[in-house]
């Protein structure tokens, strides 16, 4: 019973920290993009102010109960995804075979988002949702192939175990996974909806797409969801290729703190890389993005998969 309560407390703590880190990253991201544009940019805590403002709005227009509940659906989905990923080497809900589970869970929040946007009834939102789903279909193929390569190499389908087996050296230091990591990083770009793959939420073409009708508290929860996705996707990348940021293994209090700090720095690094790409490229049209992922990225991912397979059988 006490163990159970402690587990719940730890899960609540990690969820809170992950969401706070995500909101902080939104501010850091705007600051980095501003510096690339040679501007001063907002303060790094801007994300907190924005969310506080949206949640304290006096009027909140609803477009029916699906619109209200879909946001909770996507927020819950993203929190569940975070809980299945080892953060700083700490396994919260991970079990055997959770790599497949995470692949499914990653689709749930996006579908919830699509449901809410569809319920709002705006034609721009419908176009945006269609593009977001095509984008999801595009980036998942190369990403799944890289994940299969990892599963074959480490002979496990548990993310926690993949992190554990990277103790000696990180996956990114093994030649075929350098290629796979490059592919996965571009897939991450699509997951985070940063340029050149930000056509689903393009503000100029389709009036920010799925978000077109969101305002007030609804937009506030959507921003919380966005903060969650930043942490979830970057953590997934760090867990798969950078050893989850685990550098100390002795299980002391200090090792938890150090691992957590390293995890934070690594996801910040990955996020910064993604933002620098975002700040320097224009956006692809949806069919160009689709072609990019299925033609070039999938090919590279497949090469890395065959390479890994040959390494394993030899």
């Amino acid at each position, binding site marked *: 019973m006490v163990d159970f309560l402690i587990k719940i407390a730890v899960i609540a703590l990690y969820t809170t920290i992950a969401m706070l880190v995500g909101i902080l990253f939104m501010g850091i991201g*705007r600051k980095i993009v*501003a510096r690339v*544009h*040679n*501007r*001063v*940019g*907002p*303060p790094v805590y*801007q994300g907190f*102010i*924005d969310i*506080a*403002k949206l949640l*304290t*709005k*006096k*009027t*909140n*227009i609803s477009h029916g109960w699906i619109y209200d509940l879909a946001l909770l659906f996507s927020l819950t989905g993203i929190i569940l995804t975070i809980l299945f990923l080892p953060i700083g080497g700490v396994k919260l809900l991970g079990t055997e075979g959770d790599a497949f589970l995470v692949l499914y869970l990653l689709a749930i929040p996006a579908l919830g988002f699509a449901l809410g946007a569809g319920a709002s009834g705006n034609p721009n939102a419908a176009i945006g949702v269609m593009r977001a789903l095509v984008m999801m279909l595009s980036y998942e193929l190369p990403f799944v192939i890289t994940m299969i390569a990892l599963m074959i190499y480490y002979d496990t389908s548990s993310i926690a175990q993949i992190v554990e087996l990277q103790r000696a050296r990180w996956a990114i230091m093994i030649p075929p996974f350098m290629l796979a990591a490059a592919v996965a990083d571009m897939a991450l770009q699509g997951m985070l909806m940063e340029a050149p793959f930000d056509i689903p939420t393009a*503000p*100029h073409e389709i*009036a*920010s797409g799925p*978000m*077109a*009708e*969101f*305002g*007030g508290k609804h*937009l506030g929860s959507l921003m919380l969801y966005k903060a969650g996705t930043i942490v979830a996707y970057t953590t997934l990348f760090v867990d798969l290729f950078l050893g989850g940021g685990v550098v100390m293994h002795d299980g002391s209090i200090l090792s938890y703190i150090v691992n957590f700090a390293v995890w934070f720095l690594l996801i910040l690094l990955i996020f910064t890389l993604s933002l620098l790409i975002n700040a320097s490229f224009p956006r692809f049209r949806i069919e160009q993005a689709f072609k990019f992922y299925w033609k070039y990225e999938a090919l590279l991912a497949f090469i890395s998969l065959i390479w890994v397979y040959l390494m394993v059988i030899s």
Partner: protein
Amino acid sequence: MRYEEWNKISRIASRKSLWMLHFCTGCGAVELPPVMTSRYDMERFGMGPMATPRQADVLLITGYLTVKTLKRVVNVYEQMQSPKYVISFGSCPINGGMYWDSYNTVKRLDRYLPVDVYVGGCMPRPEGVMNAFLELMKLIDEGKARGWEKYQKYYEQYKRNQKMAFGFERGKNEGD
């Protein structure tokens, strides 16, 4: 008392993160790119452009309004979520400016929408625009930017004026 404190937090948050929707009529829209980009950089104050009225807090009326565009502006304003603010650019929304004797231009915007801050000039320079934003932030902080409450309170009068301008009712000629 607690409601007042909550309002204060809400005011601080909304002062530091004003998302704007620029309704680009007239010539004021051209003053906004320098304000947004690296020369003046309004994002320092947490301001930024937004794509739709639902997401925005500040409506910028950048120049003169014809009666036809006024209909759209009223639609856009009513779609925004409270608390919402209006900034009007240039002398046209104040007294008609150079369109003072035009038959289809709205002379006083204040009769149709509650304006919180006016920026004078024809057109105001980006410095003036920045100054207006800072003034709006000050007013919000002091709790004086109450245009949206005024619109709710005097909704009948505003609607009557708007209908008169649109010509739904026979009445006094618009704009005197």
